[in-house]
């Protein structure tokens, strides 16, 4: 019984980790290439979820909704870049934090203005609504399997693009030393716009994928943004590989911690105290983990900058 539960929670952790990776990938590149703190990355995730909710209600199908939502999320990301972000590259981190904080306030309220404060729900697509038996007596929803598969496919594609194409090479070079890339005659601004647009689209994709299993509501990106920051800081800013490993670690540690911490503590404490401290410690685990990583490696596990 516990083994089954453990397996299910591990799958949930993996799924959560992959979603985190989709968000963190764009964030870490934007951070790495342009040294730009984008707090508004979490609202891109929210916008993705709202777009898919709106489009799938309009077309009546989740698939079409997703297909329409992705280019819209990309266009929206590029629009934000042109309107706000490109004016902030030369500013210091403090000003970037503030301006993007303003965007969060604005967009959270805007979705409330357009769609109302009540959470929207997106139905799970018909073909993926069932569960599948993975092992003996172990049922797992097909849709969550689909998220895991989609996350792995996107991660693999991203790996191919970043490590085996010209644009990917420029992105890696930009994360290591942006001014040198610029000095070699590459238009770093345009490179950044591409990175930014696709980062926004990936975050939007993550939001769209989780829309059927979470409720779509204003502010849904705020907490996941912080987790994405934890991921990229642990992984090392600018490193896709670091972000991938850290995202999976964080996903697993958080999910497993929340379900098993009380049980683990029961070994050393009495049951009621164990469940109380367990529930208190579990949400703090990833932050403790992050502090520990930064204590021993102040620039993350796989720092891109040298």
């Amino acid at each position, binding site marked *: 019984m516990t083994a089954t539960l453990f397996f299910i929670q591990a799958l949930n952790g993996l799924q959560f980790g992959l979603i985190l990776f989709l968000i963190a990938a764009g964030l870490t590149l934007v*951070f790495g290439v342009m*040294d730009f*703190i984008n*707090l508004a990355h979490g609202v891109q995730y929210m916008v993705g979820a709202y777009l898919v909710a709106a489009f799938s209600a309009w077309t009546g199908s989740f698939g079409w909704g997703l297909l329409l939502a992705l280019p819209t999320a990309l266009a929206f990301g590029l629009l934000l870049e042109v309107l*706000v972000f490109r*004016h*902030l590259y030369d*500013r210091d*981190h*403090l*000003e970037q*934090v*503030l*301006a993007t*904080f*303003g*965007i*969060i*306030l*604005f*967009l*959270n*309220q*805007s979705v*409330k*203005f357009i769609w109302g404060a009540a959470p929207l729900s997106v139905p799970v697509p018909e073909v993926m609504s069932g569960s599948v038996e993975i092992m003996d007596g172990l049922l797992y929803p097909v849709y969550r399997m689909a998220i895991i598969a989609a996350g792995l496919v996107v991660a693999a594609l991203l790996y191919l693009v970043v490590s085996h194409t010209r644009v990917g090479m420029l992105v890696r070079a930009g994360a290591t030393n942006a001014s040198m890339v610029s000095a070699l005659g590459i238009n770093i601004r345009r490179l950044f716009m591409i990175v930014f647009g696709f980062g926004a689209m990936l975050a939007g994709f993550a939001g769209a994928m989780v829309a059927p299993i979470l409720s779509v509501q204003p502010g849904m990106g*705020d907490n996941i943004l*912080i987790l994405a*920051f*934890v991921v990229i*800081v642990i992984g090392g*800013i600018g490193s896709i590989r670091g972000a991938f490993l850290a995202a999976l670690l964080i996903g697993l540690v958080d999910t497993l911690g929340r379900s098993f911490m009380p049980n683990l503590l029961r070994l050393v404490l009495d049951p009621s105290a164990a469940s*109380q401290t367990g*529930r*208190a410690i579990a*949400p*703090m685990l990833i*932050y*403790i983990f*992050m*502090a520990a990583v*930064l*204590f021993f490696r*102040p*620039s*993350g596990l796989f720092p891109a900058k040298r």
Partner: protein
Amino acid sequence: MAELTQARAPSMSSAVARFDPLPVFIFAMFAAAPFLASTSGAEGYVLSLLTRVMIFGLAAMSLDLILGYGALVSFGHAAFFGIGAYTVGIMASHGVEDALIQVPVALAASAFFAAVTGAISLRTKGVYFIMITLAFAQMLYFLASSLAAYGGDDGLTLSTRSLVAGSDFLENDFALYGTTLACLLGAYMLSRSIVKSRFGRVLRGTKENTVRMEAIGFQPLPFQLTAYVISGMMAGLAGCLLANQAEFVSPAFMTWQRSGELIFMVVLGGLGSLHGAIIGAAVFLLLEEFLPEILHAASFFLNDELRSRLSENWQMVFGPILILIVLFARGGVLGFIRRGSHG
């Protein structure tokens, strides 16, 4: 080194010699406000709003001490707010209601938290520092949310404000206002003397060029850590006051959005001036309070339904204002005043 001190000397002496009337004016306004409030008819409302302004001013000023003078962008300053507030709340729920015990405990707790997290955070630089301070604040936030015995997510209502040496004079809004003003003034004078001292000059030196400070024989870490602890204690004091003002504590006091607001207040008022942070807090809270009404009045040309929707969604205007201030108003309100007075 001789060159360095010579280069600095003129700006130092002019900063000391020039008397700035603005802080005096600010504190005079705060001191006069209760008398004006009692003629306004909405005395309770005005007093509680201004008390909040001063409390947030105190917290923002404490942040300015490390942000403006040490360039340490702490994105978790609301955690100290929470420590101060929860110390008051938790001790009160166990029957310890005297501020003379609560406040020292809160200050000690803030100092302890600042010392431990500061020692870890200050090993990192730049973006990593921003993120790790954020992470520590999130830890406390989740800890507070999970304290089922003290209200968990919903928070904890105080049955009464803190006593002072057994007397309950803080129940009077005027007394609370006066106490808050005294705390703010005390913290301001302390911060001002810290900034002027040798310690403050070293801190500013580490802000401008850490390598050079090391080269002339100063280890930045002890200075930065001390400043971080002092700043955390001041914000903890603000937390104690906030708990008493609201008669309520909740994890919402230390969300990361709250930390962001504190940074914004400091920048809005003008970085690295101490009283700028107080102005920033005042402008921020007053905007938050009155922007809905301003919007309602300004949109007289729209129909009623749109007008009420607009004032309900005032944050849609507030966000862009924030962005515009960052993009165009360098130096915040103080920068604006300074530019004005120089023609």
